[in-house]
């Protein structure tokens, strides 16, 4: 059963088809769309888990779409990076469950089926992006999750939602075109679109076009990943979107940019000398993003904007790890991709629950909420502690490994940057926890608030305990991503 070959395409096809059908099936009963979307996401998660079990048993495997041989047709590949699909399915499922009560207020009720359709299509695009082994297919799936993300941001009733979505769209489309242009250059150079095949044909014998393609891909994916200094679309878009969408955007869509960067590193593994300047740039921009993002988060008053800037900081961490290019730092960065996804979705969902129950989003207004919404605030506090990287929580492993990698690479100054950014993150974490638990309420809506319904606190609590669980599972996860690290930077085993 687990060896049935067609599980792999199902990973992308199932949510895409389910998403397209949602508005058709639930045009007249918008409230039922939630159950449909959650069951599709659960099935997708089950498929992803089945693929993960097979990956653990027998290593990476491929699938030739339509029976065409990989070099000619489209190839799907499930490897350690593609295994992020499990996290994607998990977080999408919990976000959809959370959406049930949230969306009724945050989105026009008639549009609820469209909202669920877009979330499912977003999940399908992400899954396809994670498992494809074909460059053009990579672009197509990237557009599927990007366009659905633009539309999801615009779904919110926030007054700035349309403008934030438009800014996100213009910058996102620019980055997509850079990627497509580079795919064209790679195709013109190698005559193939298969990533593994092109990686073998690309070398440094033609440095000019190869450097052009590398620069285009890196710049394009850096915008998608919101790497400093091209992060400025992110705070508006993530703060304006409905909370479950913010969770998916920060946890998954931004990480797809990181995965795109990983695929770029795989693609240019054979032209190692071209990668060196890019890796140095990644470390510098990552360090600037980690410090700048954390500082900007510290001065925000709006809780969702604060979380959005903290995403910029964490993307900075991940890029430092990838740019250092040592085994421990790169493995730490990959683990941090998953861990930050769980932490940040917990935080955005908690913020969403608070906004849903009180209508307040200013941190100072939330004083004293810990007594009124104990479960939500507990989850939020746990995730905030985890975000700052206190051991043994999930945020610790990635940062520790990246710091070790910085020492290995002989850059002790970077460790200082990492510690400084960590301290700033802890500072704003403590600021929020202090407001929630140790200050008297200043707003009537706080003093009369009640805790969120089960469909909201259950996903939150699962994610909050995931923050601890992933922290304890650090060693197995590092071992799991080790083979993927081998494939980067041209260190082919």
């Amino acid at each position: 059963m687990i060896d049935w070959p067609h599980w792999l395409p199902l990973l992308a096809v199932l949510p895409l088809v389910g998403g397209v059908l949602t508005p058709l099936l639930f045009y007249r009963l918008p409230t039922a769309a939630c159950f449909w979307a959650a069951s599709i996401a659960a099935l997708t998660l089950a498929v992803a888990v089945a693929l993960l079990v097979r990956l653990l048993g027998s290593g990476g495997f491929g699938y030739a779409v339509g029976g065409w041989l990989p070099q000619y047709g489209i190839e799907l590949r499930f490897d350690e990076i593609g295994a992020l699909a499990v996290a994607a399915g998990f977080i999408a499922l919990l976000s959809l469950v959370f959406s049930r009560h949230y969306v009724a207020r945050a989105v026009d009720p008639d549009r609820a089926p469209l909202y669920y359709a877009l979330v499912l299509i977003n999940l399908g695009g992400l899954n396809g992006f994670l498992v494809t082994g074909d460059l053009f297919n990579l672009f197509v799936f990237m557009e599927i999750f990007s366009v659905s993300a633009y539309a999801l941001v615009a779904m919110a009733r926030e007054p700035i939602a349309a403008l934030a979505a438009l800014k996100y769209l213009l910058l996102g489309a620019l980055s997509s075109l850079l990627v497509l242009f580079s795919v064209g250059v790679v195709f013109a150079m190698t005559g193939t679109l298969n990533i593994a095949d092109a990686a073998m044909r690309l070398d440094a014998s033609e440095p000019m076009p190869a450097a052009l393609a590398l620069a285009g891909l890196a710049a394009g994916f850096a915008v998608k990943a919101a790497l400093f200094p091209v992060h400025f679309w992110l705070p508006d878009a993530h703060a304006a979107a409905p909370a479950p969408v913010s969770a998916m955007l920060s946890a998954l869509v931004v990480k797809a940019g990181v995965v795109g960067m990983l695929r770029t590193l795989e693609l240019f593994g054979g032209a190692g000398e071209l990668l060196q300047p890019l890796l140095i740039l990644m470390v510098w921009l990552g360090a600037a993003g980690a410090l700048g993002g954390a500082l900007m988060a510290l001065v925000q008053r709006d809780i969702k904007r604060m979380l959005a800037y903290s995403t910029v900081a964490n993307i900075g961490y991940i890029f430092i790890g990838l740019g250092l290019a040592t085994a421990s730092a790169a493995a730490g960065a990959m683990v941090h991709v998953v861990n930050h996804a769980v932490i940040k979705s917990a935080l955005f969902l908690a913020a969403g629950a608070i906004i849903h129950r009180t209508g307040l989003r200013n941190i100072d207004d939330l004083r004293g909420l810990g007594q009124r919404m104990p479960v939500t605030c507990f989850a939020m506090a746990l995730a905030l502690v985890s975000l700052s990287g206190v051991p043994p929580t999930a945020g610790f492993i990635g940062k520790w490994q990246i710091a070790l990698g910085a020492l290995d690479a002989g850059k002790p100054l970077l460790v200082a940057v990492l510690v400084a950014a960590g301290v700033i993150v802890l500072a704003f974490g403590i600021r929020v926890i202090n407001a929630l638990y140790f200050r008297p309420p200043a707003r009537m809506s706080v003093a009369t608030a009640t805790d969120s319904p089960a469909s909201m606190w259950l996903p939150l609590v699962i994610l909050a305990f995931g923050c601890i669980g992933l922290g304890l599972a650090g060693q197995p996860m590092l071992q799991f991503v080790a083979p993927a690290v081998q494939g980067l930077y041209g260190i082919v085993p």
Partner: protein
Amino acid sequence: MNVLATALGHVDYLVAVALFLIGAWILVTSGNLVKKVIGLNVMETSVFAFIVTTGMIDGGAPPLVVEGMEGPYASPLPHALVLTGIVVAVSITSLALVLILRVKSQFGTIELDEIVPTDEVRGAEDSDAIGGNDD
């Protein structure tokens, strides 16, 4: 001389890159949202033109395996790619235009520097505050 010859040999690529940069310039510098979308479309066209020309072969035959048609064949793959790319571009353009309509109805303008974000929805009304506790 050598560089010039190489450049003239790939004049189509140069045109594509020039168009791409023109489009990017419009997209980044223009303050008018519709003009930004037009810049985006110019960029899209340049990328599509570039990909189509990569499939061209001097004196190449149409890629049809029939009697009397002999190689070298032009590559048919870029056309399939560009067709997909055009579909994506159309959907992005339409979404962008709809969003511009919404921006126009909310702010009354499509010039970026005339848009003043309203901050009133942030935070709660003052009637919500508990008296004397607001330090």
